[in-house]
């Protein structure tokens, strides 16, 4: 069970004067249950890449398969849920309930089973039952995002793709979002996060793909990433790695501020910290 991309090449406006090469020989594989981050700067091809994973875009050459099924087959749509960068645009129901029901109803789910899936999805997103009858357009931006995500989850996808889910969220809501994603992942759903910023998400993920001008330039675990040279490191692991490289006895796969503080403090005063 996996999403498998082999030698994917894609251009927008092919064979016209406006042709734009967006993906160049991309190969990667994401297993069911994985939590991955796809990162790279704006315009590098991240959104183009993920739109191939649920069949919104078709390869110019190469192949994209979900659990062995090519993405031009309809049946993959229910397996791969996608939350777009501006989830407000994904909302259309007259009420929150109608909006969240739309996906599963479209896949043929009816009656009590439909009610159950909608209820579970709202629960997962900490959405109160009382807003079910409200128009989604009367909600705050943050709540709209939660409703859009519940709408995607109600179809019970095996793979959940989120395009820049943290953009525009403040620190508190980012933490909430990430804890929801961790919870979903622990239920066996693959999480694929697209983000132009690495630091926030890297500690959560199993694997990282870096993309630059339509090419994959790094794939590996966060640990491999930290050990690689000449790639950008978030500041806390950077400090720890610099101390380590200078011969000080500290671990360097540390992202957490408290952990970094403890690690350096115990180097300065081993007894005192042990006693605490």
């Amino acid at each position, binding site marked *: 069970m996996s999403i498998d991309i082999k030698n994917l090449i894609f251009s927008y406006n092919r064979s016209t004067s406006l042709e734009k090469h967006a993906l160049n020989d991309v190969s990667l594989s994401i297993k069911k249950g994985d939590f991955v981050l796809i990162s790279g*700067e*704006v315009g590098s091809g991240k959104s183009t890449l993920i739109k191939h994973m649920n069949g919104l875009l078709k390869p110019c050459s190469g192949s994209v398969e979900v659990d062995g099924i090519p993405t031009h087959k309809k049946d993959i749509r229910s397996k791969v849920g996608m939350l777009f960068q501006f989830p407000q645009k994904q909302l259309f129901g007259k009420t929150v309930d109608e909006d969240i029901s739309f996906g599963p109803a479209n896949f043929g789910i009816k009656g009590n089973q439909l009610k159950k899936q909608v209820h579970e999805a709202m629960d997962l997103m900490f959405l109160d039952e009382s807003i079910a009858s409200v128009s989604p357009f009367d909600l705050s931006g943050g709540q709209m995002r939660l409703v859009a995500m519940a709408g995607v989850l109600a179809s019970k996808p095996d793979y959940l793709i989120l395009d820049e889910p943290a953009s525009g969220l403040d*620190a508190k809501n980012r933490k909430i979002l990430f804890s929801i994603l961790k919870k979903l992942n622990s239920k066996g759903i693959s999480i694929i996060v697209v983000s*132009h*910023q690495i630091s926030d998400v890297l500690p959560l993920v199993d694997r990282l793909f870096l993309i630059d001008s339509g090419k994959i330039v790094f794939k590996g675990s966060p640990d491999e990433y930290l050990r690689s040279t000449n790639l950008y490191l978030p500041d806390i692991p950077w*400090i720890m790695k610099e101390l380590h490289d200078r011969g000080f006895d500290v671990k360097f796969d540390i992202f957490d*501020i408290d952990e970094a503080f403890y690690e*350096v*403090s115990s180097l*300065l005063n081993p007894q005192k910290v042990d006693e605490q």
Partner: protein
Amino acid sequence: MIQINDLSHRFPNGNLALDSVNLNIKKGEFVVIAGRNGSGKSTLVRHMNALLLPSSGNVIVNGMGSSDQKDHWDIRQAVSMVFQNPDSQFVGMTVEEDVAFGLENLGMASDNIRESVDRCLQFAGLSEYSKTSPIHLSGGQKQKVAIASVLAMYPECIIFDEVTSMLDHASCNDVMDLINSVHKAGKTVIHVTHRLEEATTADRLIVMDAGRIVLDDTPSNIFLSGKVSDFGLELPPIIALAKKFKDSGILQGYLALSKDELLEDLCQLILKT
């Protein structure tokens, strides 16, 4: 150079986006304005070049009040703005055409335009891209073109409204370097962001919440006060770590504001013990 007195702004739908704001920005200052989404940052800075007009109170730029329409042209000449999304700001087919556009509109002689455009492109580190189409540039390079285009108009003050928020780390640093150079070249700089690491080189940090100014001090003082989290902002990890060492008495003196400074402080400390 910009004086704001008791400024309130109510949008037609009834939203009170600014609530009695008082602010005085001096010529040559580098001011960062931070605050959570919807706190009123964009509304505030749009008053500084008369894109929005006060519901009550007043805004005075170089002695000209923004309520007097005949001064709008002069105010906008003195105070320019660069926005979040560079794509929406391009007008030319090539980078140099784009930078020249504003000057051509002013009817400047073509030799002078050439010279200005070259100077601004060089300043922004874009000389090699002068004949490139903006659509073939990276996000960071596009933002630099937008900045060069504004510089060509020779404003006294430039406002950057979340210009880094769509960029990755490398481009973000590049653009911040350029903003810092713009300030060093003598311009008044007002930089709106929700990333506090971008405030470390500023003279002054202003935090907004619910349409009001809630903090206004040096970045160090604000970071040390521990108050930013009350307003939906987060200390950059490196500064949070430096603050922890300082609060616990392990590090003394100035708060380290960059990773290099903190590394230096920690190395010295470890070698001493």
